[in-house]
């Protein structure tokens, strides 16, 4: 198959566009999913614990 400029542009404008938009939507949904809120809040607070041993 001959890969020329038009092939690549076609690929970028279809599949490239699709996967970047899908990625964007996926990330936004993940970040704002209500059930994740507690997990994120815990994650950002837990690193401040003064606990200097691995949990067993």
């Amino acid at each position: 198959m001959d890969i020329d400029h038009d092939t690549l542009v076609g690929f970028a404008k279809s599949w490239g566009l699709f996967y970047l938009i899908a990625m964007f939507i996926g990330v936004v949904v993940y970040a704002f999913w209500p059930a994740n809120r507690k997990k994120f809040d815990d994650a950002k607070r837990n690193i401040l614990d003064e606990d200097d041993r691995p949990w067993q």
Partner: protein
Amino acid sequence: MVQQLTSGERQNALVILLCVFVAGLAMAAAGGSDPLGIHGVIVMLFGAGLGALVMRSYYDRQPDPDRLSHYYDDPIKAGVALTLAWAIFGMFMGVWTAAQLAWPDLAFDAGWSTFGRLRPTHTTGVIFGFGGNALIATSFHVVQRTSRARLAGQVSPWFVLLGFNLFCILAVTGYFMGVTQSKEYAEAEWYADLWLVVVWVTYFVLFLRTLARRKEPHIYVANWYYMAFIVVVAILHIVNNLAIPVSFGQAKSYTIWAGVQDSMVQWWYGHNAVAFFLTAGFLAMLYYYLPVRAQRPIFSYRLSILSFWGITFFYMWAGSHHLHYTALPHWVQNLGMTFSVMLLVPSWASAGNALLTLNGAWHRVRDDATLRFIFVAVVFYGLSTFEGSFLAIRPVNSLSHYTDWTVGHVHAGALGWVAFITFGSIYTLVPSLWKRERMYSPALVEVHFWLAVAGTLIYVFSMWNSGILQGLMWRTYTQEGTLAYSFLDSLVAMYPYYIARTFGGLLFLLGAIVAAYNIWMTVRAVPATADRRADVPDTGLAPGAAVTPAE
């Protein structure tokens, strides 16, 4: 260090070092008098030297089985020491090469000390030596603390750290001998590149296995950034360094990429080295050490996730902005330009997130030089990402490309962002790692801070001036339509700026030396937190007099 390994692990370490030694022997035999042969000898010495170190403690007492219920900090401590050693070496080479531009006689008429050979020792020394060791050391620290799990290996962290340093040594010693594959920031030749692949894959597996052991349900965002750094650097390094050696007995190799594809691969690599080596990894430091030092959780965790994916996906496409007005197809240039401009969004999201975290703790920024290091890093991060997006626009690039403006931009990022966040992280890390109450001298941290700020500003402003001046002189036409200035005219105009830049770099180097001294004395002279220091007022005087450990 070796005492922390069981006898089985000591044996494993010896077997690995024996393999390294044998590989060096093979290189020396195949290479003969080629630089490859000299590198073989260096590899043999490296393997033998570390082997001797392991053997000296081989019959020492077995480690306490209780060790597994602690974090594994020995490799991190060695990593911090190596970071500082490379900082001083790399920055010294930077000052030297900067001085050579003002006073070319400083090459002393020798081959090894010409600008072309010294410059990559500076870039490799600071990017890989200083930056890389800092990334490895802090990633080991952050992944353990945020996962609440010990590193998933006893020998492999050492293998990663020391193996990476062997790569740096091979790279830098090679440049002095004239070994280079002429790819910017990837100058090291094929055998060093192959070795780095082995080290990097081990790093990747170690990091993943440690994450798999985590007790926290969620992987903290800093680890995502470290993971992106490790994964993408592996991909970039392998693709860009695909090359065929002239023979197995020679250091020289030729890349498999040809013509403009080679340029594109090189700058896809080059710009993503900036993105994933010098940005993603250091953002990981930011997302851990900033909240820890400020004692405030990150302003918005969601925003940190959104900007993570933004940075990861946009940066991949930005490399072609290094090739404006070249044989690279116009649409590829446009692609790079567009993505570079869009990159401002996730970059400023990260910078804004960090500044909003500090909002409400400004008194701490004022009082605590360590937090101020982190704050200045964020400001320079915001500044240089804006500048980067701006310079990537083609017409702007026509003024800035090939001028010192680019050098100024790189150093705004490298000094102002990368080095500042690294020193801020190290000053946070060192007392907790060595279980010290505080740094040996807060006054010296303050001295370092102001040396670094002054050095960075002098450097960046002189390069902005000289770069724009240079760019304008190169494009000024007379009424007759001829160039108004010869290249030599522009060179003469650079002279004062080159001197100023050397001075700025020198201040920054002095700051790094002060940091190394302060950290050394913290480890040596500041008592551990367990036995509390006598309650003497902090005189803020010179070291030596001020801190005598109370008996």
